[in-house]
């Protein structure tokens, strides 16, 4: 057994016009990341990810994964760009072509280190004698692996290596030490001498350098792009009809095939009677395959209509009348008769069951599930002049290319894969779920023009490779005090995700075993794979146990998770977000002086109002106006604010494009802040170069934060720090920018457009900026967008819904009513 080598293989090459191309193969060793000998050796020979820096300072990231709605083009590019300290505005994203150079071996390595080879790849490994090195020839998108493995080991390392090389070039040029240089927004800076160079100016030299062995990755606190809600690059094309999916391929001269498969899995076609099908308009040919029959026509609809006229006979089989009930009966027999194979055996479950004061039992079942991707399965193949072209939505372009080339009898090098978006994948479009790919290729072999084979929705549901049906039998043993002694689980296989049936709970005796669940129904990975059923089984039975033990199911789990801080944290966060079981109401002054929260979920950004819907049309306009005018008139007139304010000015302040209200927790709460205070100021300053921008510090700002903000403001002559009353500042400004401060809430009283760059519970009345791009847009269009917002109604709704005003006469009655309502008394 050889451990993964520490060596990395980085390829750099110079580009015409003075750029650099960087490819990286990364293996990050740790005690978790041991792979078998074959994987380790092959790990030394491939390149996983590429990024390109050109002389014009643009960066191109080649993403070797399929975009199927998970945002992978954006997320992987963010990972590379962040480590590179690239200016996100200068980053281009391209789908990596389906060629060996972009095979994503990081996935194999990542999985191999975590669990052994994942079962969805086992087929390839076990049926094939070829070396694992060649198995790396795939571009799998699946198993939640893209960010975890390609991103973590490939993209980040490539970005960090490139950054280090660019620094080295700049340092050499300036004759300074590399550690005196910093990077930001696609530039290397030497702060001591005030010099800087764009990456594009250094790229040609960087191409000549020896790549670093082990580039240092950023600490999460240093991330500038990762962790932000960046707008997805694939979305604009998905709102105007221009996004191309596999089914949208239209090479010239294309024909269409509609197909009928054997109605029982595993049976073969016996005979076909074309009937009148061939006489219909546009019908080219009827193609008979081993397990199916297809009609090829000049339109899919014509092919599908003609197929209805074709009669076909398929073999009979032992499964012709097999029903769901038969299949579950088989599962019950396996569970009753078989001892199965071991998943976990700890302690002595059998003995514990015998000694137990009580034993409870639970039985669970889940059915087969089709993937049901919105885009029906399809594949277009063109075999011509000893070449083959393939268009299809797939989770493994390289694997599909190889499969089609093999069936077509054409060398892989002469095969071309044409990428597209996927209208959903969910595992259906992984390798080994070959039925459309194989059939499309075999049909296309009969023609010299492209043929697109399309499964109807009915075919798609009936001819899938399903999430398996599974039955599971549990037993739990208790002692006389109600403590859990033993956990017993028998379920029908196969195991596709090792570990999915394991439990983290501290139960001394555990016996988890898998029995035979094979049927004639084809199965495959399906969205989260075994977790989809095992988590349901396990956690349902844990609830049963807690119920029997007479314990709160949350507390019960927490007690059994003493050794698992991460699991406990997950439960805590979930409970907090759900406001679960806290039996308390949060009381805190609200944004507006005199009003208090009394909330079961939390306060400020985390109050229950965050989840509430504001429907202006359901609010009484007269009452709202009366309330709004009363509260805001008083506060503006008397200069009342949540924090003490300077006296109001006798004449209006100089008008400004924006005012930015800083908050005291500006580097604080990762969970709720989309932008930092610095980003907020810099983005606003740059977007509003022509006009004044006010910045107001928070009264409780730390000295360090104060110094930092003042330094940032000093970079812009048109940005002024002001101590004036928030009411004067809001009045003078076109828009208000904030994370989620009370000052901004108060600006709503002046009906000002407010931009919140953090989560808030008054987002209904603001423009939320989740990225600097959002902020720029909001600055531009804010007044226009918010012009007709129902501020009066919002105020009345917000403060009336959850906040109490103690000054009012009926305060006690209203407070009790609120407590009864919120605490379910």
């Amino acid at each position, binding site marked *: 057994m050889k451990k993964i080598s520490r060596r990395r293989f980085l390829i750099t090459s110079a580009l015409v016009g003075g750029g650099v191309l960087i490819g990286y193969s990364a293996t990050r060793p740790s005690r978790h990341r041991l792979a078998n000998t074959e994987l380790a050796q092959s790990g030394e020979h491939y390149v996983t990810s590429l990024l390109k820096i050109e002389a014009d300072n643009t960066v191109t990231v080649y993403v070797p994964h399929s975009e199927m709605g998970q945002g992978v083009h954006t997320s992987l590019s963010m990972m590379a760009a962040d480590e590179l300290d690239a200016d996100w505005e200068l980053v281009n994203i391209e789908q990596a072509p389906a060629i060996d150079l972009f095979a994503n071996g990081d996935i194999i390595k990542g999985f191999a280190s975590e669990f052994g080879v994942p079962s969805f790849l086992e087929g390839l490994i076990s049926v094939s004698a070829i070396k694992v090195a060649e198995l790396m020839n795939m571009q799998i998108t699946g198993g939640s692996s893209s960010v975890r493995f390609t991103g973590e080991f490939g993209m980040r390392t490539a970005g960090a290596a490139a950054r280090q090389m660019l620094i080295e070039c700049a340092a050499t040029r300036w004759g300074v030490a590399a550690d005196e240089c910093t990077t930001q927004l696609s530039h290397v800076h030497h702060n001591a001498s005030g010099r800087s160079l764009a990456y594009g100016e250094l790229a040609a030299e960087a191409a000549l350098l020896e790549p670093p062995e082990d580039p240092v990755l950023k600490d999460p606190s240093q991330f500038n792009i990762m962790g932000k809600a960046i707008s997805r690059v694939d979305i604009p094309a998905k709102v105007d009809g221009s996004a191309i999916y596999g089914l949208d391929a239209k090479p010239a001269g294309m024909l269409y095939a509609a197909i009928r498969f054997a109605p029982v899995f595993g049976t073969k076609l016996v005979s076909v009677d074309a009937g009148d099908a061939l006489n219909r308009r546009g019908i080219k040919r009827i193609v008979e395959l081993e397990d199916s029959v297809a009609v090829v026509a000049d339109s899919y609809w014509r092919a599908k209509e003609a197929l209805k006229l074709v009669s076909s006979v398929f073999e009979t089989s032992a499964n012709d009348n097999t029903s769901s009930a038969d299949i579950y009966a088989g599962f019950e027999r396996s569970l009753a008769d078989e001892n199965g194979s071991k998943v976990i055996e700890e302690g002595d479950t059998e003995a514990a069951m015998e000694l137990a004061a009580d034993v409870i039992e639970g039985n669970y079942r889940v059915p087969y599930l089709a993937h049901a991707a919105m885009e029906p399965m399809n594949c277009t193949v063109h075999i011509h002049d000893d070449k083959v072209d393939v268009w299809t939505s797939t989770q493994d372009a390289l694997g599909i290319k190889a499969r089609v080339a093999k069936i077509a009898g054409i060398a892989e090098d002469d095969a071309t894969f044409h990428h597209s978006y996927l209208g*959903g994948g969910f595992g259906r479009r992984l390798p080994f779920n070959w039925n459309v790919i194989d059939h499309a290729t075999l049909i296309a072999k009969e023609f010299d023009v492209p043929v697109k084979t399309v499964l109807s929705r009915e075919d798609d549901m009936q001819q899938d490779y399903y999430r398996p049906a599974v039955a599971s039998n549990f037993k739990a043993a208790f002692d006389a005090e109600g403590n859990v002694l033993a956990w017993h689980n028998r379920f029908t296989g196969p195991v596709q995700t090792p570990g999915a049936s394991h439990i983290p709970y501290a139960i001394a005796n555990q016996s988890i075993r898998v029995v035979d669940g094979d049927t004639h129904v084809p199965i495959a990975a399906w969205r989260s794979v075994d977790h989809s059923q095992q988590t349901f089984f396990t956690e349902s039975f844990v609830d049963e146990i807690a119920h029997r033990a007479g314990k709160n199911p949350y507390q019960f789990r927490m007690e059994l998770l003493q050794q698992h801080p991460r699991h406990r944290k997950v439960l805590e966060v979930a409970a907090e977000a759900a406001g679960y079981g806290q039996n308390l109401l949060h009381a805190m002054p609200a944004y507006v002086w005199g009003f208090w929260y009394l909330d079961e979920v939390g306060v400020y950004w985390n109050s229950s109002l965050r989840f509430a819907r504001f429907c202006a049309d359901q609010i009484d306009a007269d009452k709202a106006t009366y309330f709004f005018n009363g509260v805001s008139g008083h506060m503006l007139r008397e200069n009342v604010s949540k924090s003490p304010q300077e006296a109001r000015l006798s004449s209006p302040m100089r008008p400004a494009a924006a005012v930015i209200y800083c908050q005291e927790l500006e580097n604080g709460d990762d969970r709720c802040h989309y932008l930092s205070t610095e980003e907020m100021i810099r983005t606003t300053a740059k977007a509003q170069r022509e006009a004044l921008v006010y910045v107001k510090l928070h009264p409780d700002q730390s000295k360090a934060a104060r110094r930092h903000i003042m330094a940032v403001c000093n970079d812009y002559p048109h940005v002024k720090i002001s101590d004036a009353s928030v009411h004067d500042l809001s009045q003078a400004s076109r828009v208000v920018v904030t994370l989620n401060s009370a000052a901004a809430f108060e600006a709503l009283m002046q009906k000002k457009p407010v931009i919140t760059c953090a989560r808030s519970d008054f987002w209904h009345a603001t423009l939320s900026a989740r990225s600097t791009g959002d902020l720029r847009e909001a600055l531009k269009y804010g007044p226009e967008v918010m012009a007709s917002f129902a501020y009066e109604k919002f105020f009345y709704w917000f403060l009336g819904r959850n906040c109490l005003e103690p000054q009012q006469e009926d305060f006690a009655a209203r407070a009790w009513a609120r407590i009864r309502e919120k605490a379910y008394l």
Partner: protein
Amino acid sequence: MATFKVNGIEQNLDVEPEMPLLWALRDELGMTGTKFGCGIASCGACTVHVNGRAVRSCTTPVSAVEGQDITTIEGLAGMAAGANTSAPSLTAVQQAWIDHQVPQCGYCQSGMIMAASALLASNPNPSDAEIDSNITNVCRCGSYPRVRKAIRSLATA
């Protein structure tokens, strides 16, 4: 011969009268923005406008739209802008879809946007219940909360 306008341009197609509009658009005219999802008017991926009304094109034969005005996702913004050449290249609905980052795989979103646009045109301020009862399109990724959010952002603006 089937004759109808698609995004303002008259089309004369030599196709069977019973050919569904979906396949006339996709296979005959090469306009692939309108999607095939189920073929039985169940999922809504194929939604287009016929005279401004949302219609599921996969079960609408071309004979039923003879002489009518069809708008597809490709022409939505252009038809809304009319002769106004300085109009934005996206409608407010499309822009809201970007602002709220609605699409995931995106396959159902052409139909979703066509359905939402038709709803807002006839009812500028739909309630949640009206949104739910009018937008019955299927999204396998589960983008429904953002679809509602995007529609509401337009309704209350």
